[in-house]
């Protein structure tokens, strides 16, 4: 809180420290919610500009991180509403086609073999492609819970909704993701895995 108070008094060095402390999480939320990293830098800048402008009115009623992540999520949702072009990330089907139907990159346990960088890049794209098939509301809860490891109570505070809503969205989002992966997983299992 000390750092936030220094930022509120207009201390630019303190604000830099604050940005550096939270930028990693902010970027990861943005990339996962947006489904690709191309606009992440612009969105993150908007988030921190908004936070800087609003800091004087932040009264510490909630945790700073909760407030920051709320600004981040809302900025992403606004951006998604305004976005005209499609995400640059390939669909899961395209990624599977590209790997000539070999589904090991999706389901085989990660190997420390450094020669598999192509598979690794494809895997990261596949994770975003799978998330992209969800609605933004569902994607947000999966990102905050299963990727960023936030508690359901914290997510409820970030989204400003009851914990029950988070629970039901999380259940539906996980189910939707599972169903999206089902045909690929069954094909992979049928291939003797």
């Amino acid at each position, binding site marked *: 809180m000390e750092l936030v108070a220094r930022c509120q008094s207009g201390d630019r060095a303190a604000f830099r420290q604050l940005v550096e402390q939270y930028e990693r999480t902010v970027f990861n939320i943005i990339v996962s919610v947006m489904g690709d990293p191309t606009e992440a830098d612009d969105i993150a800048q908007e988030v921190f500009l908004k936070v800087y402008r609003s800091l004087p009115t932040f009264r510490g009623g909630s945790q700073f991180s909760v407030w920051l992540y709320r600004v981040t999520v809302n900025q992403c949702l606004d951006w998604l509403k305004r976005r005209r072009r499609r995400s640059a990330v390939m669909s899961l089907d395209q990624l599977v086609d590209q790997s000539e139907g070999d589904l090991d990159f999706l389901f085989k346990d990660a190997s420390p073999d450094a020669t598999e960088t192509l598979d690794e890049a494809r895997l990261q794209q596949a*994770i975003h492609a799978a998330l992209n098939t969800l609605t933004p509301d569902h994607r947000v809860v999966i990102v905050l819970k299963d990727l960023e490891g936030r508690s359901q109570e914290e997510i409820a505070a970030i989204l400003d909704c009851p914990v029950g809503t988070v629970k039901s969205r999380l259940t539906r989002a996980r189910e939707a993701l599972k169903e999206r992966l089902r045909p690929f997983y069954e094909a992979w299992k049928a291939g003797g895995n």
Partner: protein
Amino acid sequence: MQTGHPIDLLFPYVCGELSKDEAQRVSEHCAACPACAREVDLVRATQRLLARRVPVAPPPFFWTRLSARLDAEGVRSVFWPEVIWVSKRLIPALIAATLILTSLFWQDEGTSNIESYLTGNGTGKAGEQVLVGNQAISKETVFQTAVLDDAARSD
């Protein structure tokens, strides 16, 4: 725990979000139910896939670019946001004050209308309405009220 297949509990089970007793019951069910065991397998594959996400690193020089934008937008000082915050609270007060002043003005206007009517300066016809305060009433009513007032004053 629901009866039948505990489908809704499979993700919480795999993610370790169930109580010990609930987890035990799901585990026992899956040991005896091949359909749920297969489903748990898919749930695990889904969670494993998410767990393999590699966090992205912020792009280099993020602060430098952000700092340049802070300078460009002239938001170095925290003065303006404070002003905006205060004015947001002042606006309702100003609106209220304006409404009070406006209603006082109309009250005044209403009295002038009555006076001009009674002194013969009024240009309206019988049945027309005049504004008294913020209410429209017929000129006849105004006249009757004024006559009664006069009668009371002369008593």
